[in-house]
């Protein structure tokens, strides 16, 4: 018999909430008990993702292009070794990018909510100190305290695409995308144009389209922002930009319907 039976969230707590073990969906919501320590020592001193600051200046934002290129090369090689066909390689790259996109949407939007003048601006995470006093440890590196108003959620197709074309592109590639075009033929089709894609600039064109990684990022962002869509990359060599890539975003019909209703 399975050990994890999902109990109804009963009023009788099955176990004493003496030391928090985190949320357990099989038990349901747990009460904060009167004598529970607000923050146990063990959990604060451990290195944890919660002790890191989310602020952009907490880390060096500059990454060596060579390191970036070698990492991407390894990613492609790994996908290539694990796949049997070209489309499978592209699918794997796409999937890798997708998970990145989900995270970028939240992170970059959250970061742009932080106003540059807030008091925490020049104080990136103080997590490295060994002894953290229980309650004050995390209050200081909390960015949310400095936020007066969160950035608007993007509700329209154009808004979210501009977010990708501007914020995401400059975070990933250090510059904004070259163009954002709406298709004249189809209502649900948009194109993000990059004249010299940074990730694949050292990769000679082959039958494998490595820009599918970026497609995955775009699709991850749009999907988790509830704009279900399909993104593909097409390389369109031009005279001056022989590595030009066009990312075609095709939204599902429900997105158009919703926008027509709400506008």
């Amino acid at each position, binding site marked *: 018999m399975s050990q994890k039976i999902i109990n109804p969230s009963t009023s009788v707590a099955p176990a004493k909430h003496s030391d928090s073990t985190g949320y357990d969906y099989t038990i349901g919501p747990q009460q904060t008990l009167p004598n529970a320590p607000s923050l146990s020592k063990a959990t604060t001193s451990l290195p944890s993702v919660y002790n890191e600051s989310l602020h952009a200046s907490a880390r060096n934002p500059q990454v*060596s*292009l*060579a390191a970036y*290129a*070698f990492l*991407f*090369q*390894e990613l*492609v*090689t790994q996908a*290539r070794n694990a796949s049997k066909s070209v489309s499978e390689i592209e699918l794997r790259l796409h999937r890798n990018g997708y998970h990145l996109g989900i995270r970028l949407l939240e992170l970059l939007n959250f970061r742009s909510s932080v106003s540059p003048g807030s008091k925490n601006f020049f104080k990136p995470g103080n997590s490295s100190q060994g002894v953290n006093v229980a309650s004050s440890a995390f209050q200081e590196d909390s960015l949310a305290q400095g936020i007066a108003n969160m950035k608007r959620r993007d509700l329209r197709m154009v808004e979210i695409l501009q977010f990708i074309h501007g914020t995401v592109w400059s975070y990933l590639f250090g510059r904004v995308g070259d163009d954002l075009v709406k298709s004249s033929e189809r209502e649900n089709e948009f194109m993000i144009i990059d004249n*010299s894609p940074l990730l694949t*600039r*050292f*990769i*000679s*064109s*082959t039958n*494998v389209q*490595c820009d599918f990684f970026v497609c995955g990022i775009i699709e991850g962002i749009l999907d988790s922002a509830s704009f279900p869509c399909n993104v593909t990359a097409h390389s369109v060599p031009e005279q001056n930009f*022989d590595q030009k890539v066009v990312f075609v975003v095709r939204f599902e019909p429900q997105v158009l319907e919703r926008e027509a209703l709400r506008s």
Partner: protein
Amino acid sequence: MAIQTILVINRSGGLVYQRDFLPSAAKLTSNEYLILAGTLQGVVAIASQIAPKSLQISAKQGAKTGSELGDATQTVPYVGSLGSSAASAADLGSFLGPDFFNESFTSWNTKGLKHVTTDQNSLFLYQTLTGLKFVAVSTQNTTNAMAVSIAENLLRKAYCLYADYVMKNPFYEPEMPIRCELFDKKLGELVAQL
């Protein structure tokens, strides 16, 4: 002086890249190029065997160094005529900035062949730390020290291109013949700037 051919020889003496830049020049067959690469590899090995003795002599004698055999800490002066003005920041690939190409650099070819002159041609070698060799064949014979520096600067840039467009290409197998469009293209641009 024009560059006729550029060759890249891997560390085991195999020819991995060969390209002619002058369509008019007499061509060797691919087999002959392979033999040339193998021979060069052998000559370089022999040269490095004889090098230490002459290095000792040159070290004793002081400043005077042999023309073929450079001393251990030789730096090659930067030659500005190498089309560096046209190389904008975007063309430099992953190399930091134009100043990387504006300063003299250390030659790693400390013991071995650097320059071969025949009646018809000159042949310049650039050796990397990993044993990779870049060879340029020019159309005139020259023993001019300036020409040697120019060739060394050129081949170093070719090495940078190799580092970018060959080694960062996930579809390239190390030690195998180089078939990368972008490397071809960039190398063509580099030689054309000369």
